[in-house]
Structure formats: C-alpha cells, structure tokens
C-alpha cells in the first residue's frame, strides 16, 4: 500500500517534470511566432504578397518577387541535392564497407560542419565567377550543398531501419540486389526519406549568408534562374539593416512569412509521413 502511494507520487512528479520540459521547449517557438507576428502584422496584407517593393520613401509595396524567389531557390536546391543526396545515402546503406563509402561519409560530415557562408563562397567560385554574374542557379547550388549532407545521412539511416526480411524476401523471389533496393527497400523507407527532404528544405529556406554572393538580390520581378533573384531572407536582411521604419516593418513581415513557410514544410512532412504510413501499415 505505502509502496503503491510512493510509486504514484513518483510517477506524478515525473509527469509534471515532463510537462515543464515540453513547455520550456515550446515557449521559444511561441514567443518567436508571437513577436514576429506582432511586429510584422502591420505590413502583412494582400499587397505584401502581390506587390513589388516600393522605392525608398514610398510606403506600402510587398515582397512578391522575394516570396517566389525563395520558393524557386529552395526548389533548385532540392533538384540539385535530392538525387545526389539520396543516391549517396543508398550507397552508404548498401555498401557501407567500401572505400567510396568512407569517402562519401567523410565528405558529408565535413560539408555538414562547413559554415554556410563558406559554402556560399564556394558556390560563388563555382558558378558566379565562371558565368560572371550572380544567378538563382548559384544560390540553388549553395543551398543544395548545404542540403546534401542532411539528405545523405537521413537516407542512409532510414534505409538501415528497413527490416532485413524485406530484402531477403525480394532476393528469394529472384530480385537482384539493385532491384531489391529500388523496388522494395527504398519504397519502404520513402515516407521517412520524404520527411527528411522536407526538413532539409525547411532548414535551407532560412539561410541568408550563402545567398548574399550567389543569387544576390533583385529589386524586380524575375523568374530567370540565370539572373540574380530576390529571396525572403536576403530581402529581410536588406530591409532590417536599412534606416527606414517602413522597411523595418516589411522586414518583420518577411520574417513572419519565412517562419510560416518553414512551419508549413514541417507540417507537410508530418502529413506525408502519416499518409504513407497508413498505406504501409494498412
């Protein structure tokens, strides 16, 4: 009896501590959202989404070009990073012992630790200098390079989680090793891999430094990926360091939108997992 009460008390205390920990973790998120919304709400209106930036001195205007720019840039990053990252991850999971795998693993680790601004400089040297102009492609390459290690590691780990029985089942039916990987193992890990990709996209969507000397910025509407391109992060940065109150408000609105995009990507990741899991579990 006394033991039972003691056990209940301990359990209650543990639960309370957990709840406190959850609150502490959630608090910064809520505060950030609240603060960014409070500061940016004034400038966040329809025009913000549909209009171009106004010249200094004129009030109003929006960030239509930067919003679309950010979407294009992370799209390009995905196009560069997903095939490379997934293939490397598959190789690491399938042939962990080979020399090539240790090289890939090392490269991914190093790349993961390189400051994003250095990756930006690298993309500058790789794409901007040879073509002699800033371009969305250069920005996409920089963001893609930042994404690759995340995608590689996630893919590798998720493939390793696939039960070995599935591989054996496929091989026993006469599948070659490669066939088994692409028809059974990768599909089984796909929900997780997709989430990983969305999470990686969300991470690079918030990058500013590597874009400063790759995609640079563009005051005009442009969908041309060989030209400089506006992005929310660079636009926010530019507006935030300006001396104008109106631009500060726009910067807050941009920051808010950025947070929302990242949140949306994370939620999409969640939903994708759920849908695919339901398909997998039945």
């Amino acid at each position, binding site marked *: 009896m006394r033991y039972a009460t003691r056990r209940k008390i301990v359990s209650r205390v543990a639960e309370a501590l957990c709840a406190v920990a959850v609150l502490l973790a959630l608090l910064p998120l809520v505060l950030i959202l609240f603060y960014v919304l409070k500061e940016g709400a004034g400038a966040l209106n329809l025009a913000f989404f549909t209009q171009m930036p106004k010249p200094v001195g004129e009030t109003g205007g929006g960030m239509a070009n930067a919003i679309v720019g950010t979407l294009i840039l992370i799209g390009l990053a995905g196009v560069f990073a997903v095939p490379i990252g997934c293939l490397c991850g598959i190789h690491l999971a399938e042939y962990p012992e080979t020399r090539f795998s240790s090289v890939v693993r090392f490269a991914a680790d190093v790349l993961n630790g390189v400051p994003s601004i250095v990756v930006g400089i690298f993309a500058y040297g790789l794409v901007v200098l040879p073509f002699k102009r800033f371009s969305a492609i250069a920005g996409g390459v920089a963001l893609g390079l930042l994404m690759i290690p995340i995608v590689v590691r996630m893919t590798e780990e998720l493939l390793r989680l696939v039960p070995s029985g599935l591989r054996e089942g496929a091989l*026993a*039916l*006469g599948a070659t090793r490669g066939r088994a990987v692409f028809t059974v193992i990768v599909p089984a890990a796909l929900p997780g891999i997709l989430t990983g990709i969305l999470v990686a996209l969300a991470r690079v969507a918030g990058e500013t430094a590597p874009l400063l000397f790759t995609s640079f910025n563009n005051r005009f509407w442009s969908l041309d990926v060989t030209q400089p391109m506006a992005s929310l992060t660079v636009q926010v940065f530019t507006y935030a360091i300006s001396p104008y109150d109106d631009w500060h408000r726009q910067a807050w609105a941009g920051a808010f939108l950025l947070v929302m995009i990242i949140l949306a990507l994370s939620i999409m990741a969640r939903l994708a997992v759920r849908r695919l899991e339901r*398909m*997998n*579990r*039945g």
Partner: protein
Amino acid sequence: MTTFLIDTGTPRRIKAPVMQTQINGMASPAEARIRVRHFDFFYADAKVLHGITMDIPDRQVTALIGPSGCGKSTFVRSMNRMNDIIPDAHGEGVIEIDGRNIYDGGTDVVELRRRVGMVFQKSNPFPKSIFENIAYGLKIGGVRNRRQLSETVEKSLRRAALWDEVKDRLNDSAMALSGGQQQRLCIARALAVDPEILLMDEPASALDPIATTKIEELIWELKENYTIVIVTHNMQQAARVSDRTAFFMLGRLVEYGETNTIFMNPREKMTEDYVTGRFG
C-alpha cells in the same frame, strides 16, 4: 513414445511408398530432387555444417528438426544460396538440384531462386498492396501484361488458401493482414513465380494454433505439386506434415529417414532422446 504420434490430431493421409532404407541419407538417385553431398558451411572461420549428405525426394515434405543453433536454417538457406548475401560466409561440397550443382561457378543465382522458393520464419510482406506483393516476382521477371498478372495473383492466392479472405481487397495494404494471413500471403507470393521447390524456415513458429493448422493443411496440399523442405522446432508439426524427417545436431545430420521411423523407431539414441523431448 508411440502416443506422441497419436495425440497429434490431424489424420495423416496414406502415403505412396517412399524410399527403402538408406544409408546415411542416400536414396536411389532417380527419386532425389535435391542431392546433397559432403556439404560444409562456414561463417567466416566457424564451421557450422559438417559433411551433410542426404537426398531430398520429389513431391514430398521433408522436415528438418533439431535443437536451436544446430544449422537447420543455414542448411535450407544453402539450397537457394540465400547465404550468399552474408559477408564472409561460404559453402563447400555439392548441392545438386535436378542434377546440377548449384554451387558451380556458372549457376545463375537469380534463376535458382526463382525455381527454389522460400518462406521465412518471420512473415515479410512488402509494404505494398496484396496484389503488388503477389505480382512482385512476376514483375521483376518482366511480366507486364495486366491480365496475366491478375490471373496469376488469383491462382496463387487460391493455392495458398487465401483468396476468399482477400479477394475484395486486393488493393489494400498487405500490412493490414493478420499474422497467419501474412504468412499465407508470403507463400502465395513464392508460388506466383512458379517454383518447383519450396523451402520453409519455421513458417508457423510465430503463429497461433489455428493459423498454424491452416499452414499445415496448406503444406499437405502443396506437396502434390511441389517438393517441400520445412524447418521446424515443433516435433508434432514435423510428425504431422512431413513424409521424411532429418534430425540435425551440432551441424551434423544425425539421422534421416521416413518420419514414422524417425519418431517411432529411431536408430540413434540421440534421435530418440530428442523426439521424446528428453532434451532440446
């Protein structure tokens, strides 16, 4: 000891006369579908199978029994070269199927595995629909014709006695099936590529008694068309489903013969001790 067989329940059907007594597992070559000669197996330096020699007859059920770790799984997995995927493992000796040594250099392993199907201890349906699971083997074999796929899916599911339970939900995920249904699905999936030999490694060990009975009945029916090798640690099961039984111990084939003989009148003391439950 005789009560052992009597309380196993399921009436055994009358069997066609099997091989005569054989010396150390050998039968007359004409009846043997799989001929194993002096087969050794190694995991790195550890030798886990020692000079296995036995003949496995066509269209019969051969059970492999023996205590855990004695090499039953290693042995069945050698018959479709499933062990090839284990690094540093290798077999030595001869396993002939239809007169050809599958350990010869020229063996097409993919082709071999299509002819020698396998059902695993832990059912392993792919996270795909029921239909896609059964059609998988055909699809990787290059069959694209929708009609042919549907027909084979139905035929295989019927053979595995699963058709009536799933015919209305072929597009549902196979993961939603019960454990017993999943295992029958895996059998159907193996049958779909039209193998001649079926290897089963403890196919019912994770199932409840009713599902187990279904699998055992299925094995009875399948042996009309397939040569079946089944590993089991359940001796009643071996007695119920098999025509012949091989008793393994520490990587060696101790005794092999007609199931009735192995259970009622074994030659070796060790076999008798094992089948009567004195150890293992």
